[in-house]
């Protein structure tokens, strides 16, 4: 029996990204040719009322994903449900698991958190509970949201708290989209700080994906000159999906007989949270994948595990999410390198997919210098021999590392500038967020940064 994850998609960004993710997962699972339809992890199983003889093998029935869609305006949910009914051949969203209201959060974090959180929190939680009850073995939540807007950030943060209160023994993983640096929403820095500060208090782990990186990946690696939001979502979904599909644990230490060889694990997410988020002060996760190649070029490109892992490791060390223009000057053994300090990790979770994944040499990732001295067993490797999305080989590393310091510091500095001049503060105060509350959020983020810097 496999354990299940209920996903919560909040706000326009969360819904669009989540849909893209579910489509990727469903497509992959069908490619693997599992006969029973989609796996239990993210999708409800079809319960047939009539006897089994009516269901013909090979005919795929449309199932519902285990997810709840929440938005404060109806247009996005309506079009998502509509298009998943028509276009996607694999699943449809259950309209009963959708929650939409009319009013919109107006980019105001406080309105999403206080006003809508207390108004609709119970109703949304009811829908979540219904979804959880449909699971045979429930493991935890994946909440997808953006940090910039009002609904995803404000209401999303409140929902995360409510979930943690009600489901204390389940894990809670948040996937957050970091806004463009140039800005799509002017108050995004406030919203980002407030969300991160609240999530850090209640969530188990926060995976952060930057819009800017997705855009650059599309432009430089995938040769899309003018990417649309759909393209960005697909890139993000690809990275995340590679972590969520089944894989088998491989032992890093040859003398360790405890781990590894436990057979294929269907649901890596619980493992990931357990492994990476073991310390309550360190919850910021980043996700890096290699190689990023256009689909049409895949047939003509040859991959080797050694090169892919070398790239990936360097991406990890210099904390870049793009597998090009890497700073190869940063090395771990050259302790004398001036000004260029490598990025330390609390722990890494490496997923290899493709031919020969079990034989790949991952010892470079186990290097003690990558981790703080007190970390024990910081690396976990999961392998699967199935290829992923037509990639012959694909590697992803989720790491709990210092990589999130830089963007957090940038946002903090900009928010300080605004906060010093008290700009936009009255919008938040009107919805019940006091000056002190905002100061607390600032202090909380400073705290997180300082702790990561001390690694």
């Amino acid at each position, binding site marked *: 029996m496999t354990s299940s994850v209920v996903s919560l998609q909040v706000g326009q960004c969360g819904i669009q990204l989540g849909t893209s993710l579910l489509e990727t997962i469903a497509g992959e699972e069908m490619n693997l040719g599992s006969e029973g339809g989609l796996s239990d992890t993210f999708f409800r199983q079809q319960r047939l009322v009539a006897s089994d003889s009516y269901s013909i093998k090979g005919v795929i029935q449309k199932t519902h994903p285990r997810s709840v869609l929440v938005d404060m305006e*109806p247009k996005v949910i309506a079009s998502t449900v509509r298009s998943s009914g028509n276009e996607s051949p694999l699943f449809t969203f259950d309209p009963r698991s959708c929650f939409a209201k*009319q009013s919109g959060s107006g980019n105001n974090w406080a309105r999403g958190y206080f006003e809508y959180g207390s108004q609709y929190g119970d109703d949304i939680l009811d829908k979540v509970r219904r979804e959880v009850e449909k699971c045979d073995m429930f493991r935890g939540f994946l909440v997808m949201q953006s940090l910039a807007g009002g609904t995803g950030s404000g209401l999303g943060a409140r929902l995360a708290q409510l979930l943690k209160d009600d489901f204390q023994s389940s894990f809670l993983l948040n996937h957050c989209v970091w806004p463009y640096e140039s800005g799509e929403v*002017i*108050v995004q820095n406030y919203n980002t700080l407030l969300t991160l500060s609240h999530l850090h208090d209640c969530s188990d782990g926060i995976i952060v994906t930057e819009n800017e990186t997705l855009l650059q990946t599309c432009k430089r690696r995938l040769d899309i000159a003018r990417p649309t939001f759909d393209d960005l979502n697909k890139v993000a979904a690809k990275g995340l999906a590679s972590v969520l599909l089944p894989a088998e644990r491989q032992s890093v230490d040859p003398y360790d007989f405890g781990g590894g060889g436990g057979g294929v694990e269907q649901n890596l997410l619980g493992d990931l949270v357990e492994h990476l988020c073991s310390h309550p002060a360190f919850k910021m996760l980043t996700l890096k994948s290699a190689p990023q190649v256009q689909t049409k070029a895949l047939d003509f490109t040859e991959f080797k595990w050694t090169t892919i892992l070398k790239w990936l490791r360097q991406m990890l060390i210099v904390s870049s999410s793009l597998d090009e223009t890497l700073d190869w000057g940063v090395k771990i053994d050259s302790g004398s390198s001036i000004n260029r300090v490598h990025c330390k990790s609390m722990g890494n979770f490496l997923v290899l997919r493709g031919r020969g994944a079990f034989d790949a040499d991952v010892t470079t990732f186990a290097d003690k210098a990558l981790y703080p001295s007190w970390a024990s067993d910081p690396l976990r490797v999961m392998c699967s021999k199935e290829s992923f999305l037509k990639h012959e080989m694909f590697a992803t590393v989720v790491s709990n590392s210092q990589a999130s310091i830089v963007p957090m510091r940038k946002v903090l500095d900009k928010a*300080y*500038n605004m906060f010093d001049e008290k700009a936009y503060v009255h919008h938040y105060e009107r919805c019940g967020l006091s000056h002190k509350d905002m100061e607390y959020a600032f202090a*909380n983020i*400073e705290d997180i940064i300082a702790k990561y810097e001390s690694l």
Partner: protein
Amino acid sequence: MPREMVTIQVGQCGNQIGCRFWELALREHLSSPEKSRMATSTSSQEYDDAMSSFFANDPPDEDHLYEGWKKTMIGQLRARAILVDMEESVVDRLQRMPQIGNLFNNQMRLTDVSGSGNNWAHGFMEYGSKYQEQFLDRVRLSVEECSSIQSFFMMHSLGGGTGSGFGSKILESLEDSFPKITRFACSVFPNDDDDVITSPYNALLSANKLIEHADCVFPVDNQALIDICNHIDSHKKKSQRSTGFRSSSRMRRQDQQSVTGPDQQSSGDTYHKMNGIAANMLLDLTASVRFEGTLNMDLSELPMNVVPYQRMHFLSCGLAPLFPPQQTLDISRNPGSQRALADMDKSFGSAHSSPVNQLMRSPVPAKSSTYLASAILTRGEGIRVADLERNVKKLQSQVNMVYWNTEGFKVSMCSRPPVNMPYSILSVSNNCCFRHTLSAMHTKFNRLYKAKAYVQHYEDYGMSRTDFDEACNNVLGVVSEYATLEGKTHPPANPKRRLKPVGLNFVPEY
């Protein structure tokens, strides 16, 4: 169903803009691409979600079943509007208009016969107290029809008596009765050569109320609208001259589509065109609420993003392109064309800061002044997120932004283009240079007030000198608030103290 907006048109000017607005709004909703295949008469069309934000519908008796879905067809459409004027003629004429006249009924109308005599106090004090309850009753009626009302949109002018005086009262009572519903005002500022002698008083007194009671004000200036009209006319002449004689009639027909809307009346009717520009601005502003898009913007997000301080909410608008580009330069038809792309990029620049495209003239060029925040609202599928990002970055580097908001651009994308245009860009910006408009207003006010000219007409209706002084101080207060932010494009040399870690605990230090 999208959120509804209730429009309130006050005074002669407000009703004339409103008249044009409804004409264009109806055209926009009835000429949607999927509907153009069907008959164009209102009777056989579906009443869709997008329509419900402006129009209420009394469906015909029989429900039509269409493609398995039950759809509501258009029966009798009613505008979600309230028409207020203290004389009857304009509203009467509006109700007799051929196409849009039956959008309105007498329940939505509030009129008197005598007019406000260009006296702010007459409108605010006398009519204000006399008609406040009647007005609120009408508002409640239309709010009850909405499933989730989002905003009030008031159109008025500041020069006369009704629009300025009673309009101020309206804002005040709306804030009292519906504090959570956003209040927008599209205000026509008086010209330099205004023929109303008391207009300096009226303008300043209503500016005072706009500062206090509105959430956002979109100032519009007659002279700027005339300039836009002239610009379009000169473009038309140029294109007629350049094309040969034989094709000119076809060209002319095509060129008549511009932001002024179709010319039904004689082309000499400048007011008609000017109102069309203002109406188009309002349609573009609300497009993202009504139609689908990849980056939706709710109207309530606008004050959240471009009003950093509560009292500084005067947003100048710029529209581009003013007329449809030639076919070869149309980005939606030639997505790969570099020239079309360059033409679109130019539109971004001119919507944001070219003086010709602004709906409000500024005594000081906006570009040389400090921007507090901006919003770029695009319509049309030709514009993609990458184009938006590229152009916003370019604009950010070109203009002076206040130092704590160097990335201060809010963007939104709506898929549906305006009628007869491939795309449009509306820029809304909060610029420090607006203080010059306010202080010019104050100078003109003071010229009269020093001599206490005409003051007794205001005192007749119960206003006192202190009311004048308070209004004056309030406006000057906003002027100085804008002035302190002017030029603050670099962070101060010694920033304030930050929160610093103390061991592993953090204590706010200030």
